[in-house]
């Protein structure tokens, strides 16, 4: 019957059409059209994205998409990056690997973010998936070089091994030697997070030498600069390279060896690393600068003059990560040299100092916003800001998709007028109509949330800290931001009223994090009762929340929608709001 309604297109034709649809959102839409499209789509979805590993169970995913080849999973809430989520909270990948090992033997790609990955998981991956190609672990922890050795030894078709920002127990530098001599398919290797323990350089050199398709290589700090030349000479085809430590004795022979090897890499587009930079070695990279589109100097403790020289050699730069040593003067130079700049991240060199150690202010941001018309994504740490500057930036850059401003001292007012920064951020959301991600800081009242609720219609992720006056602030956001998926709040006077009034909204979002706010335990229980498809988790290391009065605020609260019910792997300091205690044991 439904075949007639679909004008008798055979399934294979539809499947072929669907194969051009890659985005998850579009595929989800396709699957809603009718039952037969749902069926066809689910059999041909090859990439599955699970934004919250607890929103669905591995079995459910496998049941719906039996033929997927690539899976991306995210675990802990974003604020785990800043140590707000206690260890042991969860995000274990092992149960997923177990289910997939049995049911998805042709799995090729696993991408994980903020998950706990054990050596056991890595060993199971190595054993179970014969055609395994890509392992990307982003901000993960729980494994050691033993697990990596298992991957190296068994995954004959491995193309990518990327351990960005992971915490790895370095047990031995020799895991690299576990790649067999016959193994040549490596395309991308990122080990920049590995500690200062030695990596077996000879194994690395041999590996690089025989993997002629290697395009991305990001070394860790332990690789000395004078050894890098040997590696680079074996891989002149590299497109992305991360140095190890960028310090070496100032000897002409070492320098020329290094510079020579560098200049033989004609395809380089992206550079990173640069730990412990010795400025005299910087000119070695000038020959490749004109082609660079991405430069990560965020660990390079070099001062503004050197930075200015460097960026002025990079007219094609699209992405720059740098420390605030660049100062306003450096950012002005950047604005005049790098007209293609799309993304800028400025990190603080001395985040805990009271007095500013560098001359980096709102002026630098204004300069870049004015000089770089393609600027879309900003992460900026600074110590002072004004509404005037923010309004200027907003008008200069209506194309912002991501704007994250961190004024280091909480609740800092506009330094010119001493007023809150409501108007400034209001301008950002008003002018930047495509804004997807926003992080607030400085002195902010409920008014800024009114602006956000009114204008930020495309906003998907909002981070708030030390802001607002009352529940009204939270209410503005929850009731106004139509596209909101992730909301994370810390140290704001938001309580029960806004949360309960907007309970239904929470089911349209991926997750809500609130810590050090004013949400009572009673409200959490009520919310959980009203909304059975939300998991309401209270994280409190002070002991069970019901040992205190119901009106008592909870320490941390993490609410997320789920079709998998309550999770079973909670540590003792995480409580769900189940009325019936026996449910927890099942």
């Amino acid at each position, binding site marked *: 019957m439904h075949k007639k309604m679909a004008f008798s297109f055979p399934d294979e034709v539809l499947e072929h059409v669907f194969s051009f649809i890659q985005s998850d959102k579009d595929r989800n839409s396709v699957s809603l059209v009718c039952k037969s499209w749902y069926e066809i789509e689910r059999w041909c979805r090859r990439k599955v994205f699970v934004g919250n590993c607890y929103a669905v169970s591995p079995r459910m995913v496998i049941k719906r998409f039996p033929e997927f080849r690539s899976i991306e999973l995210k675990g802990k809430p974003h*604020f785990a*990056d*800043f*140590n*707000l989520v*206690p*260890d*042991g909270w969860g995000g*274990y990948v*092992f149960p997923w690997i177990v289910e997939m090992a049995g049911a998805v033997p042709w799995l090729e790609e696993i991408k994980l973010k903020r998950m*706990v990955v054990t050596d056991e998981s890595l060993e199971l991956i190595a054993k179970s998936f014969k055609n395994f190609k890509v392992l990307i672990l982003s*901000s993960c922890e729980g494994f050691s070089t033993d697990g990596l050795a298992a991957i190296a030894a068994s995954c004959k078709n491995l193309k990518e091994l990327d351990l960005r*920002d992971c915490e790895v127990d370095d047990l031995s530098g020799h895991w690299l030697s576990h790649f067999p001599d016959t193994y040549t398919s490596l395309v991308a290797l990122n080990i920049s*997070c590995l500690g200062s323990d030695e990596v077996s350089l000879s194994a690395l050199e041999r590996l690089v030498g025989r993997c002629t398709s290697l395009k991305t290589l990001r070394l860790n700090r332990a690789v000395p600069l004078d050894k890098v030349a040997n590696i680079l000479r074996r891989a002149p085809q590299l497109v992305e390279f991360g140095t190890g430590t960028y310090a070496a004795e100032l000897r002409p022979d070492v320098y020329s060896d290094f510079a020579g090897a560098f200049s033989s890499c004609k395809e380089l587009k992206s550079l990173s690393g640069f*730990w*412990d930079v010795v400025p005299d070695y910087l000119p070695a990279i000038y020959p490749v600068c004109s082609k660079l589109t991405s430069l990560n100097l*965020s*660990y390079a*403790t070099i*001062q503004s003059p050197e930075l200015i020289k460097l960026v002025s050699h990079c007219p094609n730069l699209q992405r720059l990560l740098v420390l605030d040593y660049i100062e306003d003067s450096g950012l002005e130079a950047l604005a005049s040299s790098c007209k293609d700049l799309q993304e800028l991240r400025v990190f*603080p*060199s*001395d*985040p*805990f*100092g*009271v*007095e500013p*150690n560098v001359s980096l202010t709102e002026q630098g941001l204004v300069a870049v916003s004015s000089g770089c018309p393609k600027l879309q994504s900003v992460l900026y*740490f600074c110590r002072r800001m004004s509404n005037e500057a923010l309004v200027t930036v907003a008008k200069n850059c209506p194309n912002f998709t991501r704007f994250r401003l*961190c004024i*280091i001292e*909480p609740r800092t007012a506009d330094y010119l007028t001493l007023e809150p920064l409501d108007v400034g951020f209001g301008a950002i959301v008003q002018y930047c109509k495509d804004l997807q991600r926003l*992080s607030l800081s400085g002195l902010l009242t409920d008014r800024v949330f009114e602006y956000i609720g009114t204008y930020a219609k495309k906003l998907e992720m909002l*981070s708030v*800290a*030390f802001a607002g006056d009352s529940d009204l602030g939270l209410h503005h956001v929850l009731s106004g931001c139509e596209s909101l998926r992730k909301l994370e709040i*810390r*140290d704001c006077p938001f309580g029960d009223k806004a949360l309960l009034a907007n309970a239904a909204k929470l089911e349209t979002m991926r997750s809500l994090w609130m810590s*050090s706010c004013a949400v009572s335990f009673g409200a959490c229980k009520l919310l959980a009762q009203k909304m059975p498809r939300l998991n309401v988790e209270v994280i409190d*290391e*002070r*002991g*069970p929340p*019901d*040992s*205190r009065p119901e009106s*008592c*605020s909870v320490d941390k609260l993490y609410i997320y929608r789920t079709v998998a019910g309550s999770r*079973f*792997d*909670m*540590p*003792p*300091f995480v*409580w769900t709001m189940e009325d019936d*205690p*026996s449910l*927890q*044991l099942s």
Partner: protein
Amino acid sequence: MSKPVEHDYIGLSEQPLPSMEKRSGDTNAEKSGLRLKDTELRLGLPGSESPEREDRDQNVLSLKSFVSGAKRGFSDALDGGGKWVFAGGSGGGSEGLFSPRRGGNNNEGNDLSGSDSGLKDGVAPKPLVVQEKKSQVAAGNGNTAPASKAQVVGWPPIRSFRKNTMASHPPKNDDNAEAKFGSGCLYVKVSMDGAPYLRKVDLKIYGGYKELSSALEKMFSCFTIGQCGSHGVSSRDGLSESRLKDLLHGSEYVLTYEDKDGDWMLVGDVPWEMFTNCCKRLRIMKSTEAIGLAPRAMEKCKNRT
């Protein structure tokens, strides 16, 4: 060598543990406050005597056989004197899994009636301010760093990798480098034998061994008392048999750390500042495994001085 002294590392009272009186399936009761005053995890370093012990000796159910002589007194090495114990109990406002303290070293009271002021060691409820940072003095450098403001957990929002990277290698061209980058935070992993997962602590937020020990005990007492699953079921239905046996046989723990040279040492040997500078990770290990540590510790100490 002084005569070996028997120490009570796990104080267990004669009264039966409350959980034994309840059904293991009765999670409600468990949640409403398992009275575990009587089960205290104690981690006393050799030579130390917890003040509370005096009045509890007679209540001790069993004493762990104590490895005599191999451990040395360390109280002299402690910052600011005082005893360092990894004793049971915790600040006011904590209950259930954490046993309340009876008098003793820490200054919080036994108020368990759920006030918001459950956080200790100078921590205010909102925002979570950790403590006044001490001014860091560069070694051998006459300058003192400017007194810094109180640090807030997780603020500014910078990832640990970046913080640790910048902290351990200050810029060379900065005289005050030591002072500046000595500040910040220093996360080290803490593992406990038998616990299903590691914890991380920021050594910079503690003023000394005492605070560190209280914080650790708070974090880890749930492992000896409750049950935590890592991959599987987390059951908070009271003590399991094996855990209980551990306690009853009085397994004792000592706190050790791995220093920059990769050696495992007993915590408490060196002045606190030196310790935070050279400690790479912590491990709460069964004291039976810690026997070999002491002689090395003594040698190292001698080599340093």
